């Protein structure tokens, strides 16, 4: 009995020690040094995430009491590496973490551990359910999915055979967009969704998948991408002289997507305010850090539908001064 009591005591002591300084003040607070926030982003893409990171850094420069560090795993979208980075930052007693919400057990456990260590967790771009209080800043992905559905109906006249291309599995934001899309077109009988393609997409993979759909799904005349890689890959490379999709809808703008909009390969995209998302994340975090209270758990940033016609009109306006 005595041994059991001792073992229990030791276990409790170790558990308490494992909790770190979550119950007390952080090192930053004790030393009166700037808040230390770390953004762990899935990859550096010279596009979506880069713009988001720029927005964060520009906004962070507005606050003298905040130091923002941006970390990216060596391998793109490598959840294990991102998890390790979360643990490192927790060990470093960072004051806040800004990460994408990913529905991965180890990933979420690391975030929970960070929360227990007193680290404030901000999810950007993608929200997930957690057992601890966190802040979400980003697109309302379900609403964005519905907006995409509305565009689909408008662009196809409510008559289309649609293939949805998502990203790798485990990203709730993509699932939310698909859910929104499905809900929006549910009442439109002319819209028939042939299926959803999941993969860890890069441009080569997208082009391969595109050709595969053209070959294997002759009735499919519309492709809807729920993340940015689809339009980025198709924009410059689809040959309009050859068989191609009637309507291509996707997410986010970049140079390659704009080329597709200009050529008419891309019908339209849902644009997200990446930089605004980054700025808003920092603003909300600072409020949380300074007040110690989480006044609002979600901040949705703006989205809009941008078409090929919009792009051409803009170009014409710019050309005429």
């Amino acid at each position: 009995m005595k041994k059991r009591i001792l073992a229990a005591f030791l276990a409790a002591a170790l558990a308490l020690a494992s909790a770190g300084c979550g119950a007390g003040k952080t090192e930053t607070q004790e030393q009166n040094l700037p808040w230390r926030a770390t953004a762990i982003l899935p990859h550096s893409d010279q596009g979506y995430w880069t713009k988001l990171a720029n927005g964060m850094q520009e906004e962070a420069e507005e606050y003298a009491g905040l130091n923002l560090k941006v970390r990216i795993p060596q391998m793109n979208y490598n959840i294990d590496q991102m998890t390790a980075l979360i643990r490192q930052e927790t060990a470093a007693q960072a004051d806040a973490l800004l990460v994408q919400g990913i529905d991965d057990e180890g990933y979420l456990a690391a975030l929970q551990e960070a929360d227990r260590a007193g680290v404030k967790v901000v999810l950007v771009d993608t929200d997930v359910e957690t057992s601890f209080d966190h802040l979400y800043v980003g697109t309302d992905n379900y609403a964005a999915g519905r907006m995409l559905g509305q565009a689909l109906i408008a662009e196809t006249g409510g008559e289309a055979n649609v293939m949805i291309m998502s990203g790798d599995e485990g990203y709730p934001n993509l699932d939310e967009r698909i859910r929104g899309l499905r809900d929006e077109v549910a009442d439109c009988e002319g819209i028939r969704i042939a299926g959803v393609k999941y993969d860890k997409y890069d441009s080569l993979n997208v082009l391969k998948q595109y050709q595969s759909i053209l070959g294997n799904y002759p009735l499919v005349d519309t492709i809807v991408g729920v993340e940015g890689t689809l339009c980025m890959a198709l924009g410059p490379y689809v040959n309009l002289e050859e068989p191609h999709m009637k309507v291509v809808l996707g997410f986010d703008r970049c140079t390659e997507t704009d080329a597709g909009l200009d050529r008419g390969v891309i019908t339209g995209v849902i644009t997200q305010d990446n930089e605004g998302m980054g700025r808003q994340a920092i603003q909300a975090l600072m409020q949380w850090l300074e007040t110690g209270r989480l006044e609002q758990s979600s901040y949705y940033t703006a989205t809009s539908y941008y078409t090929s016609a919009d792009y051409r009109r803009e170009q014409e306006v710019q050309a005429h001064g």
Partner: protein
Amino acid sequence: MAEQEVRRRSITSRFSIGYMILLVLALLVFAISLLVSQTQYRLYDDSLDELLELNQLFVEVEKTNNNLYDYFLYLRAASGEDYHREADITREKVAQLTEKMHSSYSRETVDLCCMVQTYLEKSDSLVQGLNLYTQQNPGSTSASSFEDAYQDTQRLFSYINLSFKDIYTVQLASTEQMRQSLTDLRRYSLVLQAALVLVALAAYVKVYRWAVHPITEALKKLTDFARRTAADREKPEHVQLDTGDELELFANTFNEMVDTIFTQMKQLEADGQLREQLRQAEVENLRISAELKANELALLQSRINPHFLFNTLNIITQTAQMEDAEETAALIEATADFLRYNLSKLNKVVTLADEVENTQNYVYIQKQRFGDRFAFEFEIDERCTSITMPCMILQPLVENSIRHGLNNMLRGAKVAIRAYPGPGGSVCLEVWDNGVGISAEKQAELLRSFEATDDSGHIGLRNVYKRLRLFYGKNLRIEFDSVPGSSSVRFVLPPQELALGPNPNALPNQ
């Protein structure tokens, strides 16, 4: 105002300001070089210090972790103590580094320190648990919780390791950035220094043009002016300087001095010309005077000759009537000699010997005329016979004695003709007679007649006096020594050079 201007723009002030500007620029270049080098050294030192401190921290963390490992693995009490000692040192290092973050913030270093603190908290907890475990009843309970805790510390240690690597990477990047910054700084410094050197050069040129050039130009002008002044007889144009300094003052003074010199030179030239004119006028005057004297002498002689010749011819006539032809012949010869002397030497200088000989001819002629009525005696000092004088001096004096002193004496009349050295080298010519003498009034009248210009009588004596005066000048003296029965007229000639040896002009025997 002008002096103030000169002071303001004086050579001293120009050079002082110029050197001050160049000195300031040189100091600026030096200060910038010093600042840049000091900044470089400081940045290098700071960077090196930070790396060294981080390295020391890492060494201490490794030592701590080694002791933790040893204690966890073998439960050696010594390792536990070593752990505590190293952990304390590590904590101290962390505290030192964290303290520095206030002045030199580094996110990576703060993260690392916090990470080490997390590690120490976990490892302390583990060691504490192990201590309790060993003190209670080792081996009686499961050690799996210690295993988990140890793995946790090793995970943290690996993060620390990674963090160190990250920091080194960042530091290297930072050092590279700093090196680039220092290179840029050096480049900017060089550009700045080069610019300053250019500014210094420009300032030097400006100072040269402002301070040195005006002086050298002014000195060149002054030198040219001095050379022209020395070389040309004509007054050169004024040297014009507008430097506003001492040299302008000097040039103005120089101009005034040259003006003064040339004015004085002109005056001297005018004086010289005037003196030359005066000299020429004097020469002309002398020439005219000499000509006048010659004319006057000729006139006097011409006035004598007819008169004498008339008398002589009368005598010849009377002699020829009273005596035979031999006597007449002698008389004519004497007369001829007398006339020849007068005619040939009228305008010539003769010796006293010539005069005595001519007077002897006259005496001979007079003796032939008056017989023994007059006795003539010549007392001529041999030393005086060579002195020179105009002709026809003694004869008129003898004639005057005969005509005025002895004319009433029918017998016993004597005439003495004397020449002898006088006092002070002078020579005395004297004609003495024992006639009636010359009264004082007569003497005064005679003396007055010597200065008269008209022919108011006493022609013979006045004629002699004037000719001697012309010949000897104002030092000639005439003396009368006269009482009844002894009267003499004496001319005292100025000092003459007398013959010392045998005289070639010795008189023939009388």
